[in-house]
């Protein structure tokens, strides 16, 4: 597989078959493609790699590094400002959360429920008279603790991460939420006050 540009000199005498021509094995690189083929493959490979990379870059382009959504961590006041046994709706409009305080008999602890139905994301309403959260989109119903018991909602309402800030106020992070009731006992999801 000679890729030299100049043809070999005309043989003197009858042509020998390839098996009769003596070849010094140590001087031949026994590759299974030519230089031309290698370079062609490399060039196309580079082109495709570039194209593929551009495609990935294009996909990454659509994921912004910042959004202009309102900030997600905020303080909601001191625990004493929330009555026991009450589902408090004062932050529902501004932050889309309910602040629930267990009745004294249950320990009086606090948790924050994110007001987004786990079915398709509509905002449920707290129906005091019926002691439940009710979603207007498809009729999902949730108990006070957030557990779903009627309608198409597949899982309970989520709880937001809560913490006690240095100034004694309750700090909520709406973007960090706990879906599984198993996680609700954790101190990040339930403030014992």
């Amino acid at each position, binding site marked *: 597989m000679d890729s030299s540009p100049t043809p070999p000199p005309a043989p003197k005498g009858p042509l020998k078959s390839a098996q009769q021509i003596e070849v010094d094995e140590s001087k031949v690189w026994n590759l299974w493609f030519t230089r031309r083929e290698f370079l062609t493959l490399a060039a196309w490979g580079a082109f495709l790699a570039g194209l593929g990379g551009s495609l990935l870059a294009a996909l990454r382009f659509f994921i912004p590094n910042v959004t202009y959504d309102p900030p997600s961590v905020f303080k909601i006041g001191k625990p*004493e400002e929330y*009555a026991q046994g*009450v589902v408090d*709706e*004062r932050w529902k409009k501004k932050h889309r959360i309910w602040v629930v305080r267990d009745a004294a008999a249950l320990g009086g602890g606090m948790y924050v429920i994110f007001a987004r139905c786990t079915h398709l994301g509509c905002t449920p309403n707290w129906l*005091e*008279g*019926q002691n439940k959260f009710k979603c*207007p989109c498809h009729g999902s119903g949730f108990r006070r603790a957030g557990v779903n018991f009627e309608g198409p909602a597949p899982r309970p309402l989520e709880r937001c991460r809560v913490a006690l800030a240095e100034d004694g106020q309750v700090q909520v992070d709406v973007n960090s939420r706990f879906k599984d009731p198993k996680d609700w006992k954790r101190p990040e999801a339930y403030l014992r006050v």
Partner: protein
Amino acid sequence: MRRSVWNWLFLLSSFGLILMFLVTVTQDTLPEWIRYQAEYHRRLAQVTGDRSKAFTLPKVRQIYLPEMKRVDRCITCHMGVDNPKMADQPQPYRTHPDLGIPGFLVKHPFNEIGCTVCHHGQGPATTVEHAHGPVHHWEEPLLRKGLTVAACATCHQNTRELKGAERLVQARALFVEKGCIGCHNLHGKGMLVGPELAETFGKSVGDQFDFKYVKGPHTLINWVEEHFKDPQAVVPGYPKIGVPESAMPNYGLDDEEVELLTALTLSFYLEEESEHHPIPARYRVPGTPEPEPTYTSPVERGAAVFTKLGCVGCHGPQGRGGIRNMNMDLGEEVPALTYVSDGYSKEELKAIIRDGRYPARADRHGPSPPLWMPSWKEKLTEEELDALVEYLYSLHP
């Protein structure tokens, strides 16, 4: 299809299109408001004696207030609002009244305030039906005369001493007298039996209000007024899903009182900050705090506390009782307070007021009683508590 069908279709479609084109051109060049403008110019010419004024080209007029996110096209028809010569004309040609308040019109220039911030209605609209309403999907129809005073609260935090807002002061007195704050909460303060009053007029007409028993148009104003007149008729309850009848007492209000209270409730909503219709800070007029009243005796002070906290809402005027509390184990009515001095020592009374009390159900399978004695310890100082107990003792005839 046969050839003749195609031919007919061609004829019909072509002539149809030409016809409809003419219709749409007519609709566009002769809109409803042109009549009003033409009539206005005619009347203006008559009033001023200047014939040339009768022939002015019709044009949509608007007041654009980007800071308030409003555009008001009311002046397309209401051309005479700023022309004093048109004071005797019928609407929509009439000058804007000055309400008998000197300086009112100067302090509320049209090109800075617009119209809808006080009168509501649909500013961007250019037809009577859509501008005034009520129309579907515009939840702020034009306010009638008796309710416009509510809009003062949008900018004015000083309605207590504001000339022209006297009806709001009257309404507030009625509000305190009836003890509404005893059941409802307002701007986050008060009781949780009834809904937050500042949100009433921010709710969605379509989904959050039941008009089954309400006559008249499906507007929030109409619902609220009917509800004031007879709460149980408008909210009779749905036992099947556990929704009880309205716990709001029927106060036997007359039409004037109903309108006052409706205007007041609307003002509660309007005085809150709104992302939807912001008010620039410089438009706001701050209020002055109410002066601290002086009391000649602890009983008088106690009476003031009794009113301020809305005890009237559940225990009735002077603690006379008479307010229903359904399915309560102690009986069908909230206990009257007239004879508390017989049954409770002052310390016992203070404890109940501080800690509250949840009544049990008379019928276990019925709904929970809507009213309960809340804990007031955060809302009362010790002196106020003492005064209140003195007042309660004084109720014994």
